[in-house]
């Protein structure tokens, strides 16, 4: 074995040993360094539009947007996406920002986020479902829907909805916005009739808010679930099942133009 080879390998090893020691030292030093350098804040949405191919869809809202209850996990948004891809023969990109249990108040906060704004900005189609959690509150809405309280909740909800639409329009003037209305999952229960009245009222007011904005379309779903509601609901008797989502997706698909 050549002595020089061994010597040079040893020297290289020593050098690396020193380098790693420096690394270790700086790691410990950095971890306990007192004052952090300021991280630059960026609140400006980059205006750079990437080269888009095909349609961009952004879905906002609650568990309905998420697809909770659908065995395939797609929800009406996923089904709609498939249909668009098939019909338009163009690639389509979906950003699903739906969060389970989201109320209109949380959505109001979500649309104010910089990145969410950027997503909306590049969208061709925006899909929104909201209000179910405001109204039903996981079943609590069944007991107090007659009281004065519900009026206050509705006022808040409509206010949030208006603000959300304003934000969407501020970021994107062109996109078609489809706002999916509420259905009454409790229609078969004892108080179903009275509950339906409240839901219809909310839907009417929501449609009014939507109508105040250009290209924001209110999509009713109340009638879809009016007959045989149990056939279209998931085991939790609240969210739609695969069939139910298909109904919603078909209704929205029929409204699309390109």
């Amino acid at each position, binding site marked *: 074995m050549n002595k020089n080879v061994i010597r040079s390998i040893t020297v290289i090893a020593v050098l690396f040993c020193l380098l*790693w020691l*420096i690394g270790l030292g*700086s790691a*410990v030093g950095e971890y306990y360094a007192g004052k*952090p350098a300021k991280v630059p804040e960026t609140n400006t949405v980059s205006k750079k539009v990437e080269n888009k191919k095909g349609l961009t869809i952004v879905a906002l809202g609650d568990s309905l947007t998420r697809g909770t209850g659908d065995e395939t996990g797609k929800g009406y948004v996923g089904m709609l996406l498939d249909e668009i891809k098939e019909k338009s023969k163009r690639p389509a990109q979906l950003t699903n920002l739906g969060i389970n249990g989201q109320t209109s108040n949380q959505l109001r906060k979500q649309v104010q986020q910089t990145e969410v704004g950027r997503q909306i900005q590049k969208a061709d189609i925006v899909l929104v479902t909201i209000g179910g959690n405001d109204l039903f509150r996981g079943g609590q809405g069944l007991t107090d829907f007659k009281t004065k309280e519900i009026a206050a909740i509705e006022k808040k909800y409509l206010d949030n909805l208006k603000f959300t639409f304003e934000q969407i329009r501020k970021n994107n003037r062109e996109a078609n916005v489809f706002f999916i209305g509420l259905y009454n999952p409790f229609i078969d229960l004892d108080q179903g009739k009275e509950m339906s009245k409240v839901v219809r009222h909310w839907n009417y007011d929501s449609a009014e808010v939507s109508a105040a904005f250009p290209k924001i379309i209110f999509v009713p779903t109340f009638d879809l679930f009016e007959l045989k509601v149990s056939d279209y609901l998931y085991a939790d008797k609240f969210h739609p099942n695969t069939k139910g989502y298909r109904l919603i997706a078909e209704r929205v698909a029929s409204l699309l133009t390109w």
Partner: protein
Amino acid sequence: MNKLIQNEMMKLIAKKRLIVIALIIGVLVMLFTYAQYKQVQTQREKLGTSDWRTILQQQIVDTTNRLSSSRMQDEWKKQLQISLKQQQYYLDHDINPAEPGAPTFMRVFLESSIDLFIPLMVMVIASDLVSSEHSLGSIKLLLTRPVKRWKVLLSKYITLCLAISLIIAISGILSYLISGAVFGFKGWGAPILTGFNVTESGLNTSAVKLMSMWRFLLMDFGLVWFVAIVVGSLSFMLSVLIRSTAAGMGVMLAALISGAILTNMVSSWESAKYLFMVNLRLTDYMKGTAPPIEGMNLSFSIIVLFVWWAAALFVSFFVFTKKDVY
């Protein structure tokens, strides 16, 4: 002393262990590179975009949804909340947490190999440094020379440290070259955030600072090196204590693997934090993930490892100088 070290280096190189290790690392890095490449591709296909902001936003929403599930362990929930907050912080500051390129791959590779893979490679060299002399019978030849025993052992230990430095360097260079061929060699100057503080109430972002990738990597390498040295010293000790190389390796392997398992379940057994194997994931502190046991931080882990290291060295030298060799 110089001669002794050279002699040991010669033995090490003649055994061709380093080449074997380099081959293992090379093959594994190729596997990881391919896996990573596939992952990026499927993600791109699924989301229909390669825009990292969109992908990150989608991840944040997905995590939020997972958090809303009620059937989730508290531990796991907390971990997710921390990573969620971190992701949101990256997004708010317009910094890509995984800038594509070889340096990011190196970082991920280092972070995931620090507690098992790199220690294993170190063990390949350390575990038979002394015991093989026993099994070959050459220990007698070595000890009959007019050199103090502790000097013999020290030369072996220094050689081990040098070999470990080389192993870390090899893994760095190989992962850079191989992954660079696929992901590109750029990205040394990419910004990265460090200094996330995990406290009882969640993630504290007040001390977060911006850093260049190359500095972050240098620090990661230093930490990996330190862990490798500690593990190497421990298996060095076992190689002095136990004559059979296989038995020594077995003990060390069991300890390392138990460490990997323990970190997932020790959160309620607090005194486990004094075991060396739960403290191996030093790079996690730089990244800012929740430690396996509450109250652990970088200096704590380094001190624990340091104590284990000192004890291992003390035992090795004490036993080796006193032991009867026959």
